[in-house]
């Protein structure tokens, strides 16, 4: 192992970092006098080029990833589920950058894009990481970026409050996570997941290991906003600027769940099956998230907070699949399918909310009154996205949920998984209620005002493309599924 090997595996991350620097130089150096929208477009375009370059370098990564010489233990994966997650991260980053182009919350677009790119690089790292140290570094790179992004609307008190809450919460979880990692290191003498598995396989269910896993679960539960580590999410979703909130809700989720898959695979090997403490922890978190997320969402009057609680609920569904996890090729692919398509839909939802918010001045439910008269295209997009989030066929959300629950029942038989899936289905039905609350205001209830809501053509085009993808992937579920499944040739 030398720096050349490291470089070959981290080509996409490198591409993103270079792009971040280029954006800074261009924005701060050459475009100081340019108009804000020009700077925003240039910065976003450069960022998109950076993501494209990262995508382009992915096939050039060293096959098999970065390996300790001699031992064969993998430090950083390349290909497989990591590649799916990384492509998802890059694609979703591109979409959030599109949303930036006509945003007005900041004058510092160059810095914004640079931070987005660096956070995305952190996401790429943790999606591939197989070593506790790299996991932690990647997580911090991602999280620090997210804190900054949440605070980016400097003149907004809400934004600052959201960021400081997010930061304090994140710092505390990172501390727990690091504590858990140090226990794991102490127990096994290694920071490599494969070596930890090898060391722990014989001596399962020691109390120390349980404590360590709880700490790890707390740290990662914070990242995916699982109950009871979710308290930051509603405030952050509500206060952060819309593109930043979309980034937090999509890209960071994909990366964190990819990491959870890696950890779950390791836990699966430690406990020789699904009934270890790790799956119990995840099942508890999943149940709490599904129930609390969906029920509290019912009471929300702010659409952003509603989306936050719905995100908590969705995290619950995915955690359920991770609790009843198996190492077969289908299982991780089903989870990644869910989280990537969820990220896609939720970016679109935040895009629509941002447009409405700018026109109406608030994201209250009543701001959506008569949307289908005020901007029919936007209302149609909202309809597609929210119905997909609720899991209505033939939209992509339906297939994602269907595959996810089918995978749970396929892995584990018995009363507990069956009951939990039944609970998840019941909670999905509950979720339909609050999604329809928004749609009812957009389509059925009488409008207070008829003044049209104007969306810039670019934003509308991006949102339409997202809605179209949601429909197309829903009608042809095999497209994305086969593509994701194609990354698991050997497992």
């Amino acid at each position, binding site marked *: 192992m030398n720096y050349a090997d490291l470089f070959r595996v981290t080509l996409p991350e490198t591409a993103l970092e270079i792009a971040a620097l280029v954006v800074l130089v261009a924005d701060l150096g050459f475009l100081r006098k340019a108009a804000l929208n020009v700077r925003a477009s240039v910065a976003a375009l450069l960022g998109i080029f950076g993501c494209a370059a990262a995508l382009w370098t992915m096939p050039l990564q060293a096959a098999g990833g970065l390996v300790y010489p001699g031992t064969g233990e993998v430090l950083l994966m390349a290909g497989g589920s990591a590649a799916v997650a990384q492509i998802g991260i890059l694609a979703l980053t591109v979409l959030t950058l599109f949303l930036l182009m006509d945003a007005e919350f900041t004058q510092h677009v160059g810095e914004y894009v640079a931070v987005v790119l660096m956070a995305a690089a952190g996401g790429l790292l943790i999606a591939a990481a197989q070593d506790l140290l790299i996991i932690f570094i990647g997580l911090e790179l991602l999280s620090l970026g997210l804190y900054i992004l949440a605070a980016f609307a400097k003149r907004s008190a809400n934004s600052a*409050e959201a960021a*400081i*809450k997010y930061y*304090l*919460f994140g710092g*505390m*979880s990172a501390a*727990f996570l690091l504590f858990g990692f140090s226990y794991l290191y102490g127990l096994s003498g290694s920071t490599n997941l494969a070596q930890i598995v090898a060391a722990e396989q014989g001596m399962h*269910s020691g*109390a120390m290991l*349980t*404590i360590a*896993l*709880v*700490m790890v*679960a*707390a740290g990662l539960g*914070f990242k995916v906003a699982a109950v*009871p*580590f979710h*308290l*930051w999410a*509603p*405030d952050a979703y509500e206060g952060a600027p819309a593109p930043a909130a979309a980034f937090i809700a999509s890209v960071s989720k994909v990366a964190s769940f990819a990491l959870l898959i890696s950890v779950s695979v390791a836990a699966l090997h430690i406990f020789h099956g699904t009934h270890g*403490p790790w799956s*119990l*922890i995840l099942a*508890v*978190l999943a149940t709490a998230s599904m129930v609390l997320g969906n029920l509290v969402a019912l009471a929300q009057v702010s659409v952003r907070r509603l989306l936050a609680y719905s995100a908590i609920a969705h995290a619950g569904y995915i955690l359920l699949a991770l609790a009843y996890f198996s190492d077969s090729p*289908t299982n991780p692919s089903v989870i990644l399918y869910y989280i990537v398509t969820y990220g896609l839909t939720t970016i679109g939802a935040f895009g629509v909310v941002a447009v409405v918010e700018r026109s109406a001045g608030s994201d209250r439910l009543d701001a959506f009154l008569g949307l289908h008269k005020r901007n029919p295209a936007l209302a149609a997009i909202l309809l597609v996205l929210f119905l997909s989030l609720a899991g209505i066929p033939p939209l992509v959300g339906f297939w994602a949920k*269907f*595959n996810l629950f*089918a*995978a749970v029942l*396929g892995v584990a038989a018995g009363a507990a998984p069956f009951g939990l899936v039944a609970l998840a289905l019941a909670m999905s039905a509950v979720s339909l209620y609050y999604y329809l609350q928004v749609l009812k205001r957009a389509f059925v209830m009488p409008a207070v005002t008829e003044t049209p809501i104007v969306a810039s053509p670019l934003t509308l085009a991006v949102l339409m493309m997202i809605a179209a993808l949601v429909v*197309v992937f829903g009608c*042809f*579920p*095999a*497209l994305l*599924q*086969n*593509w994701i*499944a194609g990354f698991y040739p050997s497992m």
Partner: protein
Amino acid sequence: MLIQEELAAAFHPSNPCIVSFATRWLWLVPAVPMLASGVIALLKQPRRKPAAALAIGSLGFSLLVSLVAFAHVLSGWMHHEAVRETLSFSWIQVGAAHVELGWVLDPLAAVMMVMVSFVGLLIFIYSVGYMAHDENFTRFFCFLSLFAGAMLGVVIANSLLLLFMCWELVGLTSYLLIGFWYHKPSAAAAAKKAFLTTRVGDIFFLLGMVWLFAQTGTLLFYNYGAGSMEPLALGGLLASPAGLGLSAAGAIGLLIFAGAAGKSGQLPLHVWLPDAMEGPTPVSALIHAATMVAAGVYLIARVYPLMQAGALAGGTTTALTVVTWVGASTALFAALIAVGQNDIKRILAYSTVSQLGYMMAGLGMGGVAVGMFHLITHAFFKALLFMGAGSVIHGCHEEQDVRHMGGLRTAMPVTFVTYAVGMLALSGFPLLFSGFWSKDGILEAAQHWSVAKGPFYMLVFGAILTAFYMTRQVSYVFFGNWRGHGKAHESPAVMTAPLAILAFFAVALGFIGTPAWPWFRAFLNGQAAGLDLARFQEPGLLPLMASSSLAVLVGLGLGWWLYGNKQSRAEEPDVLERAARPVWMGLHGKFFVDELYGATVIAFYAWWARVADWLDRRVWGGAVAGVALLFRGWAHLNRLLDIHWVDGGFDKSCEELASGGGLLARVQNGRVQGYLRLLALGIVILAMILIWSSRG
């Protein structure tokens, strides 16, 4: 286009075989007309020319692709290769199970594809003239295009599921087109009847399909040895019994045949087809004569390996025996009814039912090539007859009763000549006309059928009747004196030109299936074909040809003797009616099948609905009312208790809940310190749960 590329990328990787260019692009054949239909649907009502041009252009393109595919199969055949190329892709994948769709290019599909797109194209062109004055011109072409696309989809499908989807689309467009003039109550009723009757068959078809999937795990017909029509799957089907002495293969075959019988108007589901004549005449020609009704026959030809599974050499199977008897009965039954009809299109409709019976019988006794040959020749001459009838109706100011026509041979010479060609082909006039050769093939198969001789005699008698009722019709329409109102006129060239083209094929097609040069059979079966006049000398062949010719001539002579060139009035009763009134009433009343269904099935449903209504109103309604009364009494009691006991307690608990809500609100109060405390608490609780559970 993006979707298509991705679809291509999603093709099943387990198909290593390289498929030809023709097969790779075969999907264009149904896709382009469907796309055209979608575009036409978006056009405004007055845009007639673009609508017609789009429909005709798209089907012309389909014909072109079909011809390329046909040429590909033909060149393979000439090099002594049996071409059967398939292309499948996975449509839905759930865990290990996946549902696959795909298309197939083999001689059967190629022949059918060329026929459907060619006849369809001629009928499209003809429709431009026929529908010129209709205000819903664009809607008509939208439906026609959708139909053509769906029908071509049925033809190229390599999966029973894809076939079924297109099959249902075909049924939908048939419904839309029968009811095209929906302001006519009879048309609306006919559309409904067609949809519901074919649905009876489709339910069985669906059952058969689900059973097949459960047994074989695939709905693909051919998949490099793993398809459901290939020996491996068929062996499994034969081995599993299904009761009543049937194997699963036989039972599934019968279920699928029930679907085919619904679509192809076989007894006892034939009742919808004559009523379907309420649609515009091009629709009758395209859908209810040449293509859609033949879909049932095509389906049986497609699943022939299943129908035939388990037959010993020269033997037959239960499924094929049933197909034969149903087909032969239908052929005779419908021919009898056709004798007693007066509506020009209804005569042709019953004749279609009868000929479909011939095709089914041909499939049942002689195999795919015999039935399919009659299907192809029939498509041409029956389309010709329907379009000729349309031309007559057009020229006689929308008159459809043959008694109010007469002597049209001078007023409509082109229509007369082409119609006469079609009529002679349908009657099976010896040697010159295609109908003779294709019907002769069926009769020959019937003669050699080992199970029973009944079908043979039924079919010969049917042939006499066919010649008879067609002579009767032509005599009424083209000979004798003019009995209608106003003055008849010839139709425009856009209508007569397709007639002439079809008339040419009604004659010429016969020569690819004579016993001396059985090219069609050889092509379908993948054998070599050569001209050998000596085959006429096979024992029994010439006598058979002579006797079938005799049957035709007897029918023609009888018809001409009774109806030919008489001067008469429209109100006069029919010759047969004067001779034998009860028989005529039976024939004219279509053997009262509709009335029978009305008195049994429909009456039963009506009675059942009344019973259900009564039960609902009296029994259940009474029970509900009783329960409601009980609860109201209970509620009164409760109210008394409430006021005196519970209210105080309730108020107390409300206060408790309100303060509890305040507590919950204080949790999510936006204060970070509290949040962090909760986080730590969460960890502790989680750890406690775990440690407790590992003890227990």
